[in-house]
């Protein structure tokens, strides 16, 4: 029977089916951060089961509020830090070496095609960009993952989104995924994996694929997934070349075992011509409320935020810097940029990108999730509006009474210069 990539991963990782329709999978990677893990740790201690199934398969990072802003967040960080030390978790990233989880873990080569990955974070779907099945879970699933190395899922169903053609000038992966979410709606992919296919997806870099897969959850999707190919091999090369005796072609051929079969089944197929997509943003408080930026021109903003697990990678900073170079933020707008990992920070510092941000008037902060969920480093006041490269525009998300417009880094930069929502192609 022909199978899609997700079905192949499920089959290869199946521990058991305790009941029809329930799949308990063995996990390759269990990722942890300081917001959702401490309660799992406390519960394991309370049950006198403070153990980990395999310390090499557990990755941990302090990223949501870092450096800690108060006693409570310092305690959360401490609980995670003490636990990582106690269990000899080598891949633990503390202040100074820490970055946004969905940026730093792939950067370290932890995610490979065909892997099963969970984390107590809804944007774990990002890692499907590598051809892995990666799902956000709650603390109890995380706790069982830490203790037993398994997680239960329903029978996988997939939606295929086929994107052909090329993205136009000023149009980015973020615009593409916002268009997909607009079409699917906020629960159009619930209990489904969104499989991204087509010539446009194949032409995307790993960073762009991560941007696309990152927002699968905003359509309710369990995971976004791309088929692993040459681009995947090249991104992972320094980590995998020994496994393939330095034979790149062998790696490319091997990754094909995770490709969907031609006649695999999908609940739904959506076809999109990338050439028809324009720079867009969200309005309102749901990520499927998407409009062309040109239709919203003139709408004032107070803050620009560039960063997050969606758009805090080097190519994102470059795209924004290209718009910002030689320009200044509008006098009524403050800008915040948070490179998503220390490596990205260093590279952007060395190649002059951060200088462009500084010259434009931006505050450069350390890597952190902070402002995206209104926890630190750029929270909005009541009534304020932010042009943001993050992934969620719920009411009050970035601060009670605040409003977030989701958009690409180039659009956010253009809007910051103009002081109002602006299509990057219209900046003169």
């Amino acid at each position, binding site marked *: 029977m022909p199978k899609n990539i997700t079905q192949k991963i499920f089959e290869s990782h199946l521990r058991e089916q305790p009941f029809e*329709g329930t799949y308990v999978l063995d996990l390759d990677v269990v990722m942890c951060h300081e917001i959702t893990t401490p309660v799992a740790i406390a519960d394991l201690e309370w049950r006198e089961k403070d153990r980990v199934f395999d310390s090499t398969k557990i990755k941990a990072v302090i990223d949501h509020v870092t450096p800690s802003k108060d006693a409570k967040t310092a305690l959360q960080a401490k*609980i995670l830090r003490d636990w990582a030390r106690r269990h000899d978790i080598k891949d633990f990233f503390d202040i100074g070496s820490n970055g946004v989880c969905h940026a730093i873990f792939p950067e370290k080569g932890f995610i490979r095609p065909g892997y099963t990955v969970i984390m*107590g974070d809804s944007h774990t779907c990002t890692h499907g960009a590598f051809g892995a099945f990666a799902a956000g*879970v*709650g603390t109890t699933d995380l706790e069982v993952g830490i203790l037993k190395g398994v997680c239960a899922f329903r029978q996988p169903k997939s939606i295929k989104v086929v994107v052909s053609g090329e993205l136009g000038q000023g149009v980015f992966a973020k615009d593409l995924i916002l268009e997909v979410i607009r079409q699917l709606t*906020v629960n159009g992919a*619930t209990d489904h994996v969104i499989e991204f296919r087509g010539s446009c997806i194949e032409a995307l870099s790993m960073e762009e694929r991560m941007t696309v897969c990152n927002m699968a959850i905003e359509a309710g999707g369990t995971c976004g997934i791309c088929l692993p190919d040459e681009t995947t091999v090249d991104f992972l090369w320094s980590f995998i070349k020994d496994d393939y005796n330095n034979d790149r072609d062998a790696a490319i051929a091997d990754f094909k075992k995770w490709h969907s079969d031609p006649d695999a089944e999908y609940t739904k197929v959506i076809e999109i011509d990338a050439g028809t997509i324009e720079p867009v943003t969200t309005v309102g408080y749901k990520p499927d409320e998407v409009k062309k930026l040109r239709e919203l021109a003139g709408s004032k903003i107070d803050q620009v935020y560039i960063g997050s697990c969606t758009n805090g990678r080097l190519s994102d900073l470059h795209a924004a810097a290209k718009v910002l170079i030689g320009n200044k933020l509008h006098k009524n707008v403050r800008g915040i940029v948070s490179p998503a990992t220390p490596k990205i920070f260093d590279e952007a510092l060395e190649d002059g990108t951060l200088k462009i941000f500084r010259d434009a008037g931006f505050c450069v902060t350390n890597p952190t999730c902070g402002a995206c969920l209104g926890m630190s480093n750029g929270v909005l006041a009541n009534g304020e509006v932010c042009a943001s490269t993050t992934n969620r525009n719920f009411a009050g998300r970035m601060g009670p009474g605040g409003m977030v417009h989701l958009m690409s880094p180039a659009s956010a930069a253009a809007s910051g210069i103009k002081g109002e929502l602006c299509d990057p192609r219209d900046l003169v």
Partner: protein
Amino acid sequence: MKDFGGPVIFLDRSDINTDEIIPARYLTEVKKEALAPHLLEDLEIDGFDPKGDKLKNAKVVVSRANFGCGSSREHAPWSFEVNDITVVVAENFARIFRQNMFNCGMMAIELSKADIDRIFELAGCSDVECKIDFAAKKMVFTGGGKTVEQSYELSEFDASLVEAGGWVEFADSRY
């Protein structure tokens, strides 16, 4: 197994998200009990008061589509749990929220839109009660002299999690 059933509160809107159930600013708590006063604090629906008696007394929530969308935070089901709300009935749920409910030994019951509409006909009545027969998979809503009987489906896995008291208990005995 937890207790199920009791006074009902209706939340008449789709897409109630996890930020509305428990805002991110309270995710710095490491004890579930600390979430109790903040349940649904940011939810704005006409006639709904997050500090009112209706929510304080409720044991069952009835809502519309895509309940619990957004973040993976289990703080959302915990916020219900520490307020003695152990059942949410809706047209459908975001996957992670639904799984989190059953993982905690609570119930996220999905019904058709027509069935939800029928239950919402009681929404105007004061003191709506819901009795749940777990073994028979039946709910009986009463209020304003009216009664709505409703059967529901649970997967074998979800029912087992409820009976076991949650996923940790289920998994620990099995894996």
